[in-house]
């Protein structure tokens, strides 16, 4: 079970990071969202995995750890706020710059378009 959980987190991280490294804004947003799933799951697991345990007092003697849950709950909401902000930033960027490349300009146009300050080598 633990192995399965950990590898799920690992797959989410890998996919998230790969998408974050893409060159267009939309995949990056998707990657960030995926990455935040992974982070939330990871944080949540610091309370250890507890199947079928009580979450509310008075119903059992064994409880799941409430602290990571409280932390992750706010993290989910804030994660949403950040995703929203990045998405709107991407839209604004596309409108103002005319493309949706993460660097604000498509590499082909960069070389003859700019002085050496903006030389992009990756």
């Amino acid at each position, binding site marked *: 079970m633990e192995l399965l*959980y950990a590898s799920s987190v690992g797959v989410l991280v890998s996919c998230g*990071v790969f998408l974050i490294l893409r060159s267009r804004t939309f995949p990056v947003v998707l990657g960030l969202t995926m990455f935040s799933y992974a982070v939330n799951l990871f944080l949540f697991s610091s309370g250890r995995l507890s199947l079928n345990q*009580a979450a509310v007092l008075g119903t059992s003697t064994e409880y799941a750890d409430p602290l990571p849950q409280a932390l992750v709950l706010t993290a989910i909401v804030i994660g949403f*706020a950040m995703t*929203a902000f990045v998405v709107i*930033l991407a839209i604004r960027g596309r*409108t103002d710059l005319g493309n949706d490349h993460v660097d604000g300009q498509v590499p082909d146009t960069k070389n003859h378009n700019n002085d050496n300050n903006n030389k992009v080598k990756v």
Partner: protein
Amino acid sequence: MTLLWIPLLSLLGSIISSMTGKLTRNQSTGLTLLMPITALLMTISLAPAVFSGEVIRSTFSWIPLLGIDIAFRLDGLALLFVFMILVIGILVIFYARYYLSSNDSMPKLYAYLMLFMTAMLGIVMSNNVIQLWFFWELTSISSFLLISYWWHKAEARNGAIMALTITGGGGLALLAGLLLLGNIVGSYNLDIILASRDIIQAHDWYEVTLILILLGAFTKSAQFPFHFWLPHAMAAPTPVSAYLHSATMVKAGVFLLARFYPALAGTDIWFIIVSLTGLATLLFGAYVALFKHDLKGLLAYSTISHLGLITLLFGLDTKLAAVAAIFHIINHATFKASLFMATGIIDHETGTRDMRKINGMWKFMPYTATLAMVAAAAMAGVPLLNGFLSKEMFFAETLHQQLLGSMSWLIPVLATIAGAFAVAYSARFIHDVFFNGDPIDLPKQPSEAPRYMRLPIEILVVLCLVVGIVPNFVIDDILKSASFAVLGGYVPEFEVSLWHGFNLPLLMSAIAVSGGLLMYTQRHYLFQFHASLPSLNGKKLFDNSISALTKWCQVKIHTIENGSLQRYLVLMFVVVLFFAGWPLFEMNQLSGQKPLTPVDVHNAMGAALLMIGAISTVIWYRTRVISLLMLSVVGLMVSIAFTRFSAPDLALTQLTVEVVTVILLMLALFFLPQNSPKESSSMRVLRDLGISAGLGIVIASICYALITRPLESISDFFLANAKTGGGGTNVVNVILVDFRGFDTLGEICVLGIAALGIYKLLINLPLYIPATDSEGRPWAKERYPVLLASISQSLLPLALLVSFYIFLRGHNMPGGGFIAGLVTAVAFILQYIAHGSNWIAERLTINYRKIIASGIAIALLTGVGSWFFGRPFMTTWFEYFDIPFIGEIELASALVFDIGVYITVVGSTLMILASLGKLTANEPANAPSKEVNI
């Protein structure tokens, strides 16, 4: 207490004078002078005690835990400097009243001057070396402001920057040195440091500490090879030069030598470094001064030379040399300040400072000429003037040292040569300016300066004469007590007097005077010789090295920071990979002692779906809609995972957030290209795959290592106190609104700020709206399906009821403000989708910004409310009430807090989605297509 008042009054003067812009010049000057004059009277009242050997201290505790105090101390040395700073400061302020033209801002100059005075007073009176350093840096900054007073002139700006760079850099070295010193002694208190000579000099760090502190002193006193900033600082108004470069700023460096003399001097390394630096500066300054055509340039190099002389005296290994150094500090301050002021008058009256043009001034301004000539004679070391006495002492001391072994005779010889140069450039100052024919095309017709502009010079020149003729009468007390402080309690027997009989120093003086005069008369040969020398330009060197440094930094920055987000991310991920992965290799065993839980079919299927969803998102990432759909699968599986692992609150939150996020991304997709082009090379894809796989493996391993180890949680506290202390059985909610309520308050603020940021980003956004979808089909005419519209309308009250229920039960059962807020938001968003924002706007006028603000305000006020009951911020109150027909219910202040959370979440979410959604509503049916080619 009086001690604190001296710098405080001067600081007060800075503030007062900065506010005198509306007053007349005389009023402004009078008000400004009031403070330093009061401070001077206070100092005079303290002087007798200091002369009798007492050290006055006053300490105010600041951070007692770290042993940091605001500490002041007034001993003989400090007293001497306080006198100099205040007296010359007062004269300079008075002088500047007549010097400044009506275009120059007087309050500005006065405010800077007084700030500078505060800093200087702080340096000389500090009893804590860190505090001393603070004031030291303050002099660098305020002198920067003073030198760049005429900021519209490029030379003033450049001079100021150069002075700040050199003295500021020296200041950093000084800080390092003082920190080392404090570490060696174990205290930053000056009293203790000065008494720890043996500990300091026996320590391994002594040499490093000494060199660092000397670097600070040498840069400030413009010692060779750091001298070149001083001539460029002459771009300042002349009153500033008279103050900074005679009595104060440059003297701060030699003050530092004197201050730490008891603790640091006495070793061979001190004598070698200090004396040789001083000697080099003395000779170099005296030589260059002769060839300067600019009056102030001559004085600048002469100042450098005299500072070298003082430094050399501190570096000679006799006690009397230190006494001579202090004596020369006083003398140099008086004659150099008066010379600068006289130069100011000449500049003021003729409009130039070029000595090749200014000749024969005797005819135009005999009075100023007499004053300047007396001061210049003091600079040359002519008998009956103060400069003669200290120079005589200097010559005598050069004969008593044994620094260079059998070559020690070199020092008196070189000193005499430097003395001859001093006589030569003083002679040039007198002869070239006041005699030597007639002036050559001056910009202005010169005349005598205003009466009161000469007053400060008269006072200083009278001082030069009085000290020179009856030294014992005026200078004895202060010189003895200052020497007492510098020499650490022992003062050798000495007598300052005009006549010591025929001896070697007198002969050296005679040689210097006659040699100097001869040199001046034969100066044409010297000028020719000097012109044939290759010019060593310190400024050019400085400029070149600064621009080289800047260029180097730019290249380095562009290599790392080239504007490509992808590159930054790759660098960051690689660093994370390294630092997170490294410890894993040092761990013995990945899995812990906790027994593993068996896998059941449901969980396995869930995990498989999650991974498939994630991988599909990546595979189809170029077809954006599909990849978004796949991402939503992942989100759903995550919320199911929360359900499985006993976290119903999280599952509810994740589910609602998921809905909102997917709607948002769908909306966003409307404004963004539908597909991502294929851009990355195969190598790039391979590299990214490697990095992401590596990170995935590392995080998975850490996660596995974490969850297979037994848990020691602090949650028992929350479990035990949730019901009794917070009044709720849903511990997660009690943590959110009660135990960690302050965090939650911060989090809803972040949410609100993000929403406001989005609102701002979308204002005036000239959005391009595609006329067709990505496959070229026109949009459906029926934008709002009837079925959806009618169902959603009837769903609204139901959804609101559900959210209300979820909210109310939140304290005891899964639910609460966050989740209820999201549910409400989703219900409203459904209306937007079904009817369009215009339809909503007709029926509901909501200002979401006000909603967010009121939500945060409610949460904040609930927290503040507990103050009225004498409790700390955010203390919860709850009580059970038995209400007829309804039964027992609980009312808690946390509920009000949760309302705040609820309102903020609703407001923020709707603001984000509605502001974006509204843009689609403006779509003109056949918008001019301006598809951007990508």
